[in-house]
């Protein structure tokens, strides 16, 4: 476990290799190989570290490695007047939370790297290496972020991932929209980072340290700010601002949808699985602080649910497959923050993990679809792909079910946990959350059905003779014929390639074509989609892409079982595992079990007791209770205000909701597509608003950006008029004085110089006779001198 510092370094090395050498010299194969191997190594290493961590006693699961000092002890004054030492080491800490995170980052990262090898193969060599360099660099920073044992190291990662997301969103920098999106993401993040930085300053001045553990312990001894809005609340609020920036919460969520301009693996890795969850991770990392600031918790919860709801509503009507996923990401993040807000940190983190799995899966599947459609992203031009992309279809279905919260897939457990905790803390928020869940299920299945079910609505592709016409005829009609046409086309094309006649094309309908189809498909996937040049119609993706899909699908199915809630007879394993990361502790070794620790450390016990004392406690206290008191959740539902039955009921209800959403979506988009259009027509107004994403971008343009522009123009005018005026004035002054001094120079100084010159000239006219230019004559004069001296000596002897 002392080697954890190596985990970030491996990808960093890969990035250096690809970025410095690779862009110039590596073949695609080499570049991909380097990136993937190093990621694999990092993954293996993190697994090993994780294993080591499990080896430790439950409460001792925390291991800090100080690689080197970075900023060594600057004396700085603290808020209480004492002088603290600002001392930042390059420290890495492995504890349950970060362990989970590194597993997610490296594991999913590894799969996505593999996926990218196939997905990006169309890129030119240099760009290919560049892509992998960026990707590795991102992973490096992400690992710094999660492993850092103090705010500053975390912040390094924090900024780094921002940078990488900028680079990767703008990966197709020749595309204006892409580079704009990159800038947007970067700038919006800046706002969040501002909050984060201020928060850091405040933390240091308050606690005199930036080490997470120290801060947490220090905060643990402070009273819970139930009454007033104290310094801790302020800190947490600022940190939360940072989180909203990184994790795309209201009001800073606008960048994430645009971020979909980047390559799909990037969207999967950065904008679904890892980076955007950094905010959540950060909140969880400072759970103790947050639990001591109920008001902030409240805000977090509300913002979270609002974001979830809003994003979901927008997701309902989007047509770009990736944008739908983007908005669903935003809304899932909203769920996580909701969890954080109601104090269910473990649940939030749990959802983070499961979400990482199924959302990455979904994105990669969408990538596969886009790949298959030759770059087409609009769902209205897809449909019926089920036949062409069997693997993608199945895996994506798994992902969709997972996100819709259908048991026993992973999404169910995590989301249900969140809903449950929310229900305990605040019914209203719970209501919104449930509706959001419903909508989630709905739009996800809308996506599925528009993509995979129904008839093929996509563009025609070049085929052999008869196949083409039938394909053209088949469009828009029932879904079978285009499929056949497609097969015919495939067969024909391959046949043409093989030198056969159009016969295959004719036989398109006959079952024998399956071979032809497969044949053609091979041809297509082999030479055909090199660089998406000519497009042979939808086709399944190469192995390197489908393998990650399957792997992630398995993950999405099983990830849930880490956290089977007590109600279902499981012990909430992940929650126990993560608990130590969220509570304040003085010394690890001193106590053995979670409840004990909870009782000893003052504030947590206090929070708990309050919760016990007053039933129907305020959400804040409830939050405090759930956040801190380890025993509450560890003893299963028993101590909650509601019974086992109630919990089961809630569970069933949420499942029901999910199912309902699915059914509706199926009804609308598979059974009778016209319904959807009718609805859209009837509710034209809201539909417009939604499909324009509540005009948020426009509002921002109108207010902030326009405002900035205006102020800039004003400043420019000031500069042009006042500052330049002053400069010019001085210029004139200088010129005048120069002219004056020039007069003096000309007549006084030069006069003297000329005088001297004249005198010298006259005198030298006489004296130069001496200057014969004969060395020996000069020597002779010296000799005269010698003679003089010697004679002086002679007579004065």
């Amino acid at each position: 476990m002392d080697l954890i510092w190596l985990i970030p370094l491996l990808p960093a090395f890969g990035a250096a290799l690809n970025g410095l050498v690779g862009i110039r010299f590596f073949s695609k194969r080499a570049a991909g190989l380097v990136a993937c191997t190093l990621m694999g190594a990092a993954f293996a290493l993190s697994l090993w570290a994780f294993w080591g961590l499990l080896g430790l006693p439950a409460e001792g699961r925390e291991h800090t490695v100080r690689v080197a000092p970075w900023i060594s002890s600057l004396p700085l004054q603290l808020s209480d007047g004492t002088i603290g030492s600002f001392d930042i080491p390059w420290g890495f800490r492995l504890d349950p939370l970060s362990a989970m995170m590194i597993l997610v980052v490296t594991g999913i990262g590894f799969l996505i790297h593999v996926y990218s090898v196939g997905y990006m193969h169309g890129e030119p060599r240099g760009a290919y290496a560049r892509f992998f360099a960026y990707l590795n660099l991102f992973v490096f920073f992400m690992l710094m972020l999660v492993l850092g044992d103090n705010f500053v190291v975390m912040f390094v990662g924090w900024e780094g991932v921002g940078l990488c997301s900028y680079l990767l969103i703008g990966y197709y920098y020749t595309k204006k929209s892409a580079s704009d999106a990159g800038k947007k993401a970067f700038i919006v993040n800046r706002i969040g980072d501002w909050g984060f930085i201020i928060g850091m300053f405040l933390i240091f001045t308050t606690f005199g340290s930036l080490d997470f553990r120290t801060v947490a312990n220090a905060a643990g001894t402070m009273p819970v700010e139930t009454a007033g809005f104290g310094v801790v609340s302020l800190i947490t609020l600022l940190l939360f601002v940072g989180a909203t920036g990184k994790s795309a919460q209201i009001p800073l969520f606008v960048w994430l949808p645009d971020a979909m301009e980047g390559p799909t693996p990037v969207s999967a890795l950065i904008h679904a699985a890892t980076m955007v969850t950094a905010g959540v991770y950060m909140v969880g990392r400072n759970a103790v602080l947050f639990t001591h600031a109920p008001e902030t918790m409240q805000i977090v919860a509300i913002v979270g649910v609002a974001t979830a709801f809003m994003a979901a509503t927008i997701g309902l009507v989007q047509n770009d497959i990736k944008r739908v996923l983007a908005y669903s990401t935003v809304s899932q993040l909203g769920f996580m923050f909701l969890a954080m807000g109601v104090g269910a940190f473990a649940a939030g983190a749990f959802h983070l993990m499961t979400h990482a799995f199924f959302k990455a899966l979904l994105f990669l599947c969408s990538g596969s679809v886009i790949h298959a459609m030759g770059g087409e992203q609009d769902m209205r031009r897809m449909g019926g792909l089920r036949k062409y992309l069997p693997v993608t279809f199945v895996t994506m279905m798994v992902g969709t079910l997972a996100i819709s919260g259908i048991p026993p897939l992973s999404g169910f457990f995590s989301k249900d946990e969140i809903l449950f905790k929310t229900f305990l803390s605040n019914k209203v928020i719970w209501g919104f959350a449930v509706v959001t869940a419903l909508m989630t299920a709905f739009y996800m299945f809308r996506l599925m059905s528009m993509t995979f079910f129904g008839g093929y609505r996509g563009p025609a592709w070049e085929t052999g003779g008869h196949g083409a016409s039938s394909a053209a005829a088949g469009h828009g009609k029932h879904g079978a014929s285009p499929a056949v046409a497609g097969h015919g086309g495939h067969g024909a094309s391959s046949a043409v390639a093989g030198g056969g006649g159009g016969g295959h094309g004719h036989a398109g309908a006959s079952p024998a074509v399956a071979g032809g189809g497969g044949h053609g498909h091979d041809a297509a996937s082999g030479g055909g989609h090199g660089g998406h040049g000519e497009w042979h119609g939808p086709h399944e993706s190469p192995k390197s892409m489908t393998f990650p899909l399957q792997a992630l699908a398995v993950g999405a199915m099983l990830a849930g079982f880490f956290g089977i809630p007590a109600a279902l007879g499981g012990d909430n394993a992940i929650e126990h595992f993560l608990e130590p990361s969220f509570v304040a502790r003085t010394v690890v070794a001193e106590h053995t079990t979670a409840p004990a620790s909870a009782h000893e450390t003052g504030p947590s016990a206090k929070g708990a007791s309050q919760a016990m004392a007053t039933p129907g406690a305020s959400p804040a206290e409830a939050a405090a209770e759930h956040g801190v008191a380890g025993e509450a959740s560890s003893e299963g539902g028993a101590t909650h205000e509601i019974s086992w039955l109630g919990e089961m009921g809630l569970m069933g209800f949420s499942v029901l909701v999910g199912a309902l959403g699915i059914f509706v979506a199926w009804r609308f988009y598979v059974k009778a597509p016209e319904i959807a259009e009718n609805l859209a027509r009837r509710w034209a107004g809201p539909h417009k608003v939604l499909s324009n994403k509540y005009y948020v971008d426009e509002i921002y343009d109108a207010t902030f950006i326009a405002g900035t522009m205006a102020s800039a123009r004003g400043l420019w005018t000031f500069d042009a008029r006042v500052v330049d005026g002053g400069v010019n004035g001085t210029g004139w002054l200088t010129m005048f004085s120069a002219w004056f001094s020039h007069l003096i120079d000309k007549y006084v100084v030069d006069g003297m110089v000329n005088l001297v010159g004249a005198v010298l000239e006259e005198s030298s006219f006489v004296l130069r006779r001496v200057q014969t230019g004969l060395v020996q004559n000069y020597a002779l004069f010296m000799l005269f001198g010698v003679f003089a001296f010697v004679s002086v000596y002679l007579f004065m002897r």
Partner: protein
Amino acid sequence: MITITHYMVLSAALFTLGVIGVMTRRNIIIILMSIELMLNAVNINFIAFSYHLQNAIGQVFAVFVIVVAAAEAAVGLGIILAFYRNKETVNIDEMSLMRW
């Protein structure tokens, strides 16, 4: 009995020879050699005194004089070569480019 004076007279004579060489010859190489003669005269003085004062410091300075002589010869001959390359002569009377 040889006294210090003998040596001084010797060195004075040698020095004068050098001076005469410098004064009368026009071949610059020979002039340089005459300068070497003078330096040797100086050295003779140093050594003689170090012997008669029973003090080694004189020899030390003789060493320095030799060093200076070496440097002077190197640079001087370098100049002569450069000059010869330009004017095909070593006659000092033709090295009067700097007169009026």
